[in-house]
């Protein structure tokens, strides 16, 4: 972990980046912002950790808990909404046995996230599974895809 942090710090200094780009780098490397990582940068850069968290909690892109191996992102844009994205999300929650306030399965295999709009509205409703965009998604096709991923359990995830 230390090595990765050092590398991020070095790049940050070279590119004269700001707190947001630093947080984005941490998020990209670890999948979420752990307290340890933030505290490490806080010490190195002499910036209070509260400032990091103050900025991070403002933006929806940052996560504070570890995320699952497979990331499923449901688009909730207007076009997806009118074409029934909510039904797809409810179906996914059921398939993954997630309660309303959970977004990651207990075995850390899947994380279900919502996003405002990915701008692929003409192929709505859109679901992104491990960075691959699936357009005109139908519930049965989607659940089949999830079942395939479930059968690969223990394999290498590509979520991040």
């Amino acid at each position, binding site marked *: 972990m230390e090595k990765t942090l050092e590398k991020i710090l070095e790049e940050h200094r070279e590119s004269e980046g*700001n*707190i*947001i*780009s630093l*947080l*984005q780098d941490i998020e990209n490397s670890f999948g979420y912002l752990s307290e340890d990582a933030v505290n490490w940068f806080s010490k190195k850069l002499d910036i209070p950790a509260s400032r990091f968290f*103050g*900025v991070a909690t*403002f*933006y*929806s*892109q*940052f996560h504070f808990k570890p995320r699952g191996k497979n990331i499923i992102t449901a688009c*909730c*844009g*207007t*076009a997806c*909404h*009118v*074409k029934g994205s909510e*039904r797809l999300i*409810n179906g996914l929650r*059921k398939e993954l046995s997630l309660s309303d306030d959970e977004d990651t399965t207990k075995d850390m295999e899947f994380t279900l996230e919502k*996003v*405002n*709009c*990915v*701008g*692929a*509205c*003409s*192929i*709505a409703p*859109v679901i992104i599974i491990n*960075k691959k*965009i*699936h*357009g005109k998604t139908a*519930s049965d096709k989607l659940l089949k895809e999830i079942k395939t991923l479930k059968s690969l359990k223990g394999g290498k995830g590509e979520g991040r």
Partner: protein
Amino acid sequence: MKADNTTIRVCMGTGGIAAGGAEVLDAFKKELHLAGIKANVEKNCSMHKVGCRGLCAKDVLVDVIINDKKTTYQFIKSEMVPKIVKEHIIEKTPVKDWVVGEDYHAFHEKQFKVVLSDCGVIDPEDIGSYIRVKGYEAAKKVLTSLKPGDVIETIKSSGLRGRGGAGFPTGVKWEIARKQDSKQKYLICNADEGDPGAFMDRSVIEGNPHAVIEGMMIGAYAIGADKGYVYIRAEYPLAVERLKNALSDARKNGFIGKGILGTKFTFDIKVKLGAGAFVCGEETALIASIEGQRGMPRAKPPFPVYSGLWGKPTVINNVETLANVPCIIRNGARWFASFGTEKSKGTKVFALTGKIKNSGLIEVPMGIPLREIIYDIGGGTESGKALKAVQTGGPSGGCIPAAMLDTPVDFESLAKVGSIVGSGGMVVLDEDNCMVNMAQYFLQFTQMESCGKCVPCRIGTKRLLEILDRITKGKGKEGDIELLEKLSSDIKAASLCGLGQTAPNPVLSTIKYFRHEYEAHLQGKCPAAVCKELLTYYVLEKFCNGCGACMRACPAKAITGEKKKPHFIDSSICIKCGACFDVCKFKAVAKE
């Protein structure tokens, strides 16, 4: 014998890739190789990816051009490629069944492409492809033969207005920035396209990133800035990648950097990724975000053009605005002003989506009647059901009812009917959409995205949403509609920034045109049968043949019945998920 000139273009915007564009391109490469035709190596056959060409609903779209004769194919999958290569490219007979039909041509007929003229034609990852269509010529002309004042005059007289939503005259903004006495000025391209249901900026950057860079160069030269930023959503990975690639190519070719094109002009561009906050599309919030802070707006004045990024004069222009600039310089202000209406000049790109047949990206002259967009270009509703309304301008906009389809689409006319042009989202709603549910959807969005700085927006949108929630649940009270109206006008009047000032628009416009739907909800009915709590599912006995599909699909085990006899839904157990409705092939499940 003279060799044939063959070009193959495969649509690879986000839509094209999702439909399998990359696999189609690979299949062409493989098949041509097998056939002994060396694409991209020999001059006579080239093959490349292109950005969005509009009609994403028919992706993957492929152009095969042999000696200037273009054939366009639709719904192409990789397994269809061998037949195209064999019959069309080798034997010169197009595969008729797969060629686009009348509707594809109708989709394009009433459009006029300025910003999108090269999208879908050039390879966005090849700077040479842009240069071959007169790319960077406008910048050359500006840098070598025009004074900054001349550039500003040209833009002013073209009548170009900001395409991000507010419609402020671009030339005037530049002129004010020019007059500021400051050594350091900035030009920011706002690519934080946050409106759900809009993808114009994404498509422009994915399809023709160099046009945006060229527009920025010209703008920076006009106002005297040497640093630029593109603030772009991280939710658009492909656009970010193509933009970064284009910037690096532009730098290598001397279009950005120090001493551009042998002049003294220096300008460089950095890319800043958004982190998922809708409010950052507001210019002062965007600036705070580039500075690395929480993206909260501040009171204006001072406007950014006087005091912006790090307190310096800053011009913020939208992607589409900037992409218009090189076209105006190349073709002249008068040419641009010849399109559109008296006060809204030029064209506008719209994302036409929702319940429409030809959903996709379109560009039309300002002032075109909405009806022509929906029926001539869009081909009407997807299902053939009656159109109910067209939502324009996203969460800041409103719904235009079917009865007002003759409204011309320009800044003034849409404002008059209670909506806005906005950034260009256009979502078509049919009779299956509930207008109260639409208002609730947008309020959920704005309430979530309210930054929390000012009370009217933070608490006002929350209260609006609570009222809408209870109406859609059948728990609305008498006087709720009036309360919504009163609260909306207070929030509009008192909020700090554009987000709060426009957030009540979806509520106000739906009440204005669809008050009867609100009233029906107060009576416990959802006319469109959307709001779950107000629905009852039941079996129409005369259509039910007792196949049992609904019983198997029901997650709540609320359906009972013997084989080959009509089934029954127990509404006291039913969770109203709609699974039975979806699965029934005989239309025997009804809801009301």
